């Protein structure tokens, strides 16, 4: 297992896109903190940038990488290696290398400029989000043989979670503004990994006081230890369900 993962990680880390991604994230995070004098404001801007770019790069890069590995997979299948092991190695290889480039670029500035508890929270949320979208990429690759379709599914997934979902929520909020929907909103937030990590981090910044009654309800839930634990548990579900489905399909795939 470890040998296979080593090959995959080395292969990915040599990739120019990953190097560029690391560089871009590093420039963004150092830039944001040196531009803002208030570290809270800096964190907020960085959060928004990270929650937009990390999922995008993770899902698109992983999808393309998995499609391009079809020859590699075919070669490995004729060797005495379990199918599940091949798929796990690809998933873990992608997760490690993308996680590594995230750590390499974001962790240092965040640890320097932000209080340590928020820094830890931010880094772990970023790593989770990166992994969730690698996992979703595995699923979109396995759903179709056609590379163009697969990348299309990946882009749609990102678009949905990063932009469309918020639009739908906003629409619902206005439609049902007269009803007590605050508690339901907590549940709905769990349906989107990006929103979930955004809320968890926002509530640990001082600005959460400005979010009104809904904010208070959110704080009541996500601000507590149980809430944080539950949020990360849900993020773990977001990782394991797509990779689980894709693994199940990969075991039965004809190559």
């Amino acid at each position, binding site marked *: 297992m470890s040998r296979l993962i080593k090959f995959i990680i080395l292969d990915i880390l040599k990739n120019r896109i990953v190097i560029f991604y690391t560089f871009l994230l590093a420039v963004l995070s150092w830039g944001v903190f040196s531009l803002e004098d208030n570290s809270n404001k800096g964190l907020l801007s960085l959060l928004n940038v990270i929650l937009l770019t990390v999922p995008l790069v993770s899902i698109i890069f992983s999808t393309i990488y998995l499609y391009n590995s079809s*020859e590699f997979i075919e070669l490995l*299948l004729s060797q005495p*290696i379990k199918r599940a092991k091949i798929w796990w190695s690809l998933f873990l290889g992608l997760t490690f290398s993308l996680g590594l480039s995230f750590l390499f670029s974001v962790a240092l500035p965040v640890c320097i400029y932000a209080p340590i508890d928020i820094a830890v929270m931010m880094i772990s949320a970023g790593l989770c989000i990166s992994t969730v979208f690698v996992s979703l990429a595995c699923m979109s690759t396995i759903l179709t043989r056609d590379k163009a379709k697969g990348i299309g599914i990946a882009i749609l997934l990102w678009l949905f979670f990063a932009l469309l979902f918020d639009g739908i929520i906003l629409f619902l909020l206005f439609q049902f503004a007269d009803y007590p929907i605050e508690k339901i909103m907590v549940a709905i937030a769990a349906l989107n990994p990006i929103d979930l990590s955004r809320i968890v981090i926002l509530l640990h910044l001082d600005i959460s006081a400005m979010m009104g009654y809904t904010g208070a309800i959110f704080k009541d839930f996500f601000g507590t230890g149980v809430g944080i634990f539950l949020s990360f548990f849900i993020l773990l579900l977001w990782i394991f369900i797509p990779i689980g489905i894709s693994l199940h399909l990969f075991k*039965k795939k004809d190559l």
Partner: protein
Amino acid sequence: MIEIQNLSKTFDKLEVLKDVNIHFSSGSCVALIGPNGCGKTTLIKSILGMVIPSKGMIKVMGKEISSDFLYRNHIGYMPQIGRYPENMSIGQIIDMIKEIRNTDKNLDEELLHSFHLPSYFYKRMRTLSGGTTQKVSATLAFLFNPEILILDEPTAGLDPLASEILKDKIMAEKQKGKLIVITSHLLSELDDLITHLAYMQDGKLVFYKSVDELKKITGEERISKSIAHILKGAVNE
């Protein structure tokens, strides 16, 4: 060594293999022949576990393969069209496979040297010609001294010299009592190699006989003629 029972495979609605039963025993050199699209490659890929059968069972060396993967230690496979990671060089591919297998068995690097591959080790797979890719596939198939060799169109794309080297190698392995399964269209070049013949058509196994038996039944000296003889008979019936 390889036992196949009631094997069927359908892709969507297309039936590619229909109830195939066959038994390959060690020491024989089987030619799997038949027209294009008759299911030869699918049969081979099912033995390797690359295609999951819809029905039926395959046993390799007495073990059911659906729940096992270690049986592939005993198989050397040379695909019809070898597909390799394009950015890796020949040397990297061979080193990677060696490292993944991590075996302490003696490696058989004869083909590596007779094909002069070490002088191309730096070349990336993307830049290779079809013939050189085939040489890499052949080398990988023989590298780990497997008891079973499955060769899908081994000589297609090879130049006469390389194809002769490969045939000599197959012959030498056959002498060691290994099972060799070859698919090919060119019958004449198999004449002196094979001991058994399996003929497939439309996903069905039409016949599976030893060469001696075949020659006796048909009274022909050459394999290609005796097959033609049998097929004509089948049509007339």
